[in-house]
């Protein structure tokens, strides 16, 4: 069992998730484009979906969400849903395209992160939070999506390493 865990992606995903969360809690709390905290962990979940497909993206997002909830004190499992859906949604790129190029990956990471960020207040509303939807949501979601798309340039290769997925090999057709 331990061998299975050791050879899974968890030993890489968990420390990486904690490192990205630490960066989010330090760097991106200070650097807030348009007053919005860039959701690095959410973007990482979406990037995992892009490189690993919907299922692996959802599982990675679930684990990252647990890390996020343990750190921030939000109800355990609430962010897991949002990040799981982010990974799942972004993972559809892997289904609809065989050859993924960087800009398409960036778009899907952005869209996945946007969906995940939108779900955060939805889930908070479900757990009994009043006034979960604030007017600044219209700013938060696009900024989170765009910043995730930009970060995907780094996060997609990182997610590929974390999930032990070989990078695509481009072969030149023989003349």
């Amino acid at each position, binding site marked *: 069992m331990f061998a299975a865990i050791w050879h899974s992606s968890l030993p890489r995903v968990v420390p990486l998730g904690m490192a990205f969360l630490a960066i989010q*809690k330090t760097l991106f709390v200070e650097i807030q484009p348009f*007053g919005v905290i860039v959701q690095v962990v959410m973007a990482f979940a979406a990037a995992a979906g892009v490189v690993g497909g919907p299922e692996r993206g959802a599982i990675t997002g679930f684990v990252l969400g*647990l890390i996020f909830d343990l750190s921030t004190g939000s109800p*355990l499992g609430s962010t897991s849903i949002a990040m799981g859906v982010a990974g799942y949604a972004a993972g559809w790129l892997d289904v609809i395209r065989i050859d993924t190029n960087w800009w398409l990956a960036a778009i899907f990471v952005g869209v996945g992160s946007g969906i995940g960020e939108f779900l955060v207040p939805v889930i908070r509303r479900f757990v009994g939070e009043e006034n979960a939807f604030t007017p600044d949501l219209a700013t938060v979601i696009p900024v989170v999506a765009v910043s995730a798309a930009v970060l995907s340039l780094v996060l997609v290769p990182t997610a590929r390493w974390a999930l032990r997925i070989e990078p695509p090999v481009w072969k030149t057709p023989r003349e």
Partner: protein
Amino acid sequence: MLILLLTSIMLITIDLRGNALLDAARSGFDYAFRPFEVAADVVTQPVERIWVGVTQVDDLRAENEELRRQLDQQRADQISNQNALAENQELRALLNLDSLADLDKVPCTSIGVSASNDLQVVEIDCGSSDGVSEGMPVINQAGLVGRITRVYPETSVVMLITDLSYHVEVKIVSEAEPDDEVGPLSTSPSGFPLDSLPGIADDLSSTTSSSTTTTSPFFVTTTSSTTTTTLPATSTTSGLPGVVPGSGAVPGDITGTPTSSTSSTSTTTTSTLPPVTRETGVLDGYGEGSLPRVRLIDDSVQFGTIRIGDQILTTGGRNSLAPPNIPIGVVANIIDNPGVAGRQFEIQPGADINRLNSLLVLLYQPSTELGGG
């Protein structure tokens, strides 16, 4: 995906009901995560400094100027405030009134803020080992900051008053307009020297020195029930200024401007506090970027008495999350909602929520957090 969804829902349910195992997991994760956070803080600090240097230098200069001006102003006020505070504590002690000074406090420092765009929380370096527990109010020099929502052995999480989940009972303290009703005040024998109220004596803008009575626009009376303070010249005991017998009104709010009139011999002084109108309501957080709002409990109050700039204090009481008379802020905007929503008041917090550093946790346990409350 469905399994993950169901697992998440199950975890949420268990966590919201309270579970010792999950709390222990949080505590353990806190220990494990600390090195990551410290390392990230060290590594990213140069980038943060460059960013702040590039984007905020003009704002910081302007703010520095403004802060220097405020510092000068506050130095001038400090002496008179200390005098008024000492006098207030003395009078409260005489009446056996609760005071914030009676509560133990734990000094803490903010060590992290929320990484979420939805949660308005900060992390502080005090935990259960310091006597901190869930529900305790957190303040700083400027007023109420929030309440403890999670406690770990060495750290705690503070939900700020701007969080969507934050609610606390408050009162709006509205002082009467200086020119509402101003009249000469009665006098009574007293040895209370006017010189002992520095700053206030300076505010006496319209003084009739040749008369036997001194009046000021700051000395306001509204009814004939104004009470006279009698302080014997050699005694520290006195009646409390502003107490209306039988009314239950106690001038516990030290921010009230004392009113007085003196005789020409300076041996006769009457002190009254300005009448205050208190409306009770509930303060609700409205998330980042929005000011907290107060909605009144009783919709039939005299709205006209509440104005921009009126003080907001906690009400205290058995079910309140905070002890009484902690300043929160001032009324910044009055919002007229159509329909049954009624009038709401946007509150400008006294504490700068975005720049919290030194905080105090009041070791006050609300009855609602004691279980069964």
